[in-house]
């Protein structure tokens, strides 16, 4: 479904992402982890087209994505959430979900009035479903800026799902969440996956990563140092070194 090959992004002399190869298969939940500054967010930004790559290719469903602007990638089925919450604070919860509906299906929907005045039953039903997914049904008419932190995170998640993605990129969705919220989030991730969406999860909170993912790729200094199931990755020597520092005190490179 998603194929990164030789993907690199250099900022001056800093190799934020370096020769990354990664394949995500349809229907999987794949984790992308690594210490701070290891290039996880840069990878997401490269996949979404926020900035151009230095080298390498991004293929999505067999199609080359290099050079395509973000809105075209979204229409191809790539959606994301942000590390620091990004919503439209001056729009209501309902409107935030409404304007997110830009998939090819929505764009080809016929009729000026239903499309631009939101009158179609289908649209309303879908937004109601999304509100249900995010547990925000009672707040649909509230401005996004008036929501609590946890509610804003849920809205962001629902908004990404509103675009009918085929691949959903979650950038640290559990940051700042408590146990209960993390449990809710992993249920929500599974629910979206079961509706046919592949998920790439970038996360620091190991509880969530180890709990929901099937495959994990570990980055360090922009390079992939390990790939495997959660169990395999946890036992991996290189990963332990990256996170905890090298066991050999003579090697100061970590």
């Amino acid at each position, binding site marked *: 479904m998603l194929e990164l090959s030789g993907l690199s992004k250099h900022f001056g002399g800093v190799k934020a992402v370096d020769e990354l190869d990664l394949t995500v298969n349809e229907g999987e939940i794949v984790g992308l982890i690594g210490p701070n500054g290891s290039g996880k967010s840069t990878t997401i930004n490269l996949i979404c087209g926020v900035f151009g790559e230095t080298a390498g290719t991004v293929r999505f469903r067999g199609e080359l994505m290099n050079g395509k602007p*973000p809105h075209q990638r979204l229409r191809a089925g790539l959606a994301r959430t942000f590390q620091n919450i990004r919503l439209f604070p001056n*729009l209501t919860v309902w409107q935030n979900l409404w304007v997110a509906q830009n998939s090819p299906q929505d764009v080809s929907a016929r009729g000026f009035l239903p499309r631009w005045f939101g009158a179609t039953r289908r649209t309303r039903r879908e937004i109601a479903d999304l509100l249900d997914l995010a547990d925000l049904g009672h707040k649909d008419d509230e401005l996004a800026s008036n929501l609590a932190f946890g509610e804003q995170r849920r809205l962001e998640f629902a*908004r990404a799902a509103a675009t009918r993605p085929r691949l959903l990129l979650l950038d640290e969705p559990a940051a700042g969440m408590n146990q209960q919220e993390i449990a809710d989030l992993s249920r929500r991730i599974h629910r979206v996956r079961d509706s046919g969406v592949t998920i790439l999860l970038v996360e620091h909170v190991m509880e969530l990563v180890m709990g929901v993912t099937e495959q994990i790729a570990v980055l360090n200094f922009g390079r992939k140092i390990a790939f495997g199931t959660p169990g395999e990755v946890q036992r991996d020597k290189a990963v332990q070194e990256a996170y905890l520092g090298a066991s050999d005190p003579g090697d100061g490179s970590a």
Partner: protein
Amino acid sequence: MDDYVITVLSNIGMISFIGLSAYLLLVTGEISFGQQAYFGLGAYAAGAVTAMFLLPIWVGILVGACVAGGIAMVVGALTLRLSGLYFSISTLAFAEMVRLILLIVHVQVEVEGEMVGPAGAEGFHGIRWMFERDLSLAHFMLLIYGLLALVLIVLLLVERSRLGSVFRMLGSDDLLAEMQGLDTVRYRILAAGVAGVISGIGGALYAHFTTYVEPQFFNVMLGVHALAYGLIGGLGTAFGPFIGVAIDIGFLESVRFIQGYRMIVFGGLAAVLLIFMPRGILDEERVHRLKTLFRRRNHAGAQRR
């Protein structure tokens, strides 16, 4: 009503067009100091249509609006990559360019033994469509407010529609809007064009109301006032700019006794307002609260019945 009142009211109406034009761009997050250019272009184009080619005023207004809107879209496309201060400066530069070009344009044709048309710094005289038809100022005022109401209704409908949300998206987070699958480039050009059309209609009316236009009127102060209306009145609803106009003209008229210091006091007032209400009096938050209140009351009323 005497002519003085009608003139003041008509001026308020015509200035409101440029206020709405600047408001629309403010909503999309662009601070344009150049909307007066489209007002001027609309005025010259409409004046040329009725005075030089002797066509009806409807054609004049239409042509004025289209010329202003078309040029606004071209300028919008050219300044697309600029943001913030750079965008503002480029709009200002463009508006000054238009004004200076109008100062040297000298194109006249002979109409009924008289030379009519733009005459550089002397302006464009003889746009007498209204007086040739014995229309009173009061009639023309109705035309102004009729068109203003039409523009306002369109803007309020846009606000209710998805396009209104899209414009607000551009205003709050461009990258996120792009990430939501919106072709932000297209919508920005569209917004620039619509803003140009609105300003152009105001200019077309202005030319026919005063019977002559000169480049000097479309200087940067007009653009600054247009911006101030939206910023003071509020960016939450298209009614906002009208509050700005009311405060500006009402205030300026009521403090004539302090004469030359008026603008200083007005500037200070605007600054204080913007510190405490950065998005104006009727900002999104207040508009939303008013709407909720109104809906609840309606709901309660319906239940009582």
